[in-house]
């Protein structure tokens, strides 16, 4: 699993993130951030530098907060592990609620930054 993530992370260069989440990407940027953040499994010490690069390249702070929050709170790749502890239903609900919460957090962040 970790092996697959490291290959994907190599195949998708930073420019692609900037293209889809950058300035003027609008709602598409939000969706990309949420989907990518939920699926990906990136440790903080890669995610924060990556976010820093994205900000420098014109990605908005709210999109970045959606990205970081989904990255940390929802994990579709780790769902099989979560299911072993909580069962399908609860895991699914927790991830869905977290996803909505992340979008909400990004929305609020937009007012401040």
């Amino acid at each position, binding site marked *: 699993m*970790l*092996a697959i*993530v*490291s*290959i994907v*992370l*190599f195949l998708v260069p930073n420019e692609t993130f900037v293209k889809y989440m950058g300035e003027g990407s609008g709602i598409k940027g939000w969706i990309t951030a949420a989907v990518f953040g939920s699926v990906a*499994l990136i*440790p*903080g*010490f*890669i995610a*924060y*530098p990556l*976010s*820093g690069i994205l*900000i420098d390249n014109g990605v908005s*702070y709210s999109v*970045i*907060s959606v990205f*970081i*929050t989904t990255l*940390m*709170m929802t*994990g579709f790749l*780790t769902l099989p*592990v*979560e299911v*072993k*502890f*909580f*069962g399908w239903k*609860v895991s699914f*609900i*927790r991830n869905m*609620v*977290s996803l909505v*919460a992340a979008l*909400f*957090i990004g929305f*609020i*962040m937009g007012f*401040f*930054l």
Partner: protein
Amino acid sequence: MKKIQKYIFPNVFLILIGLSWLFDFAAGKQIGINFWMFFKEMILFLPLMFVLIGLFDVWVPREKIEKHIGSASGWKGTGLVILLASLQAGPLYSAFPFAYILWKKGCSIRNVFIYLGAFSTIKIPMITFEIGFLGLKFSLLRTLITLPVFILIGYLMEWYLKDKDFDVKQP
């Protein structure tokens, strides 16, 4: 035979990375570095978490958990869970075993989910890192906005799961 099949992919992956280093193949090397970063995170934090879980299991009696973060605990319990979670570090999947031990010892549904929320989003060991790359203002705002949101999630989950014989299983 089945057992061998299970390990084919990881082995092929490692061999390819090894060959990339030998022959100076840039793509393979980069993938190797990525993999090493993930692997490092897992190998650094998982054993620590398991040691912590073990000690917690032995040292902290059930009555204490029930009293402080059980279903009858109020805001103080919530604060305690958040403090506990924010002092720990590691990927989300390392929090599940700890959530299990909390639940086993009588922690309330609400606090189990507040624990998971706090564990994933507020980490004192990571916050200096976040400030370094994204700035103090962003980090503080994100933390302050996220805090009430996952407390709300805790209440929501409790409200929904209260009468649904919710259980955290040992895998």
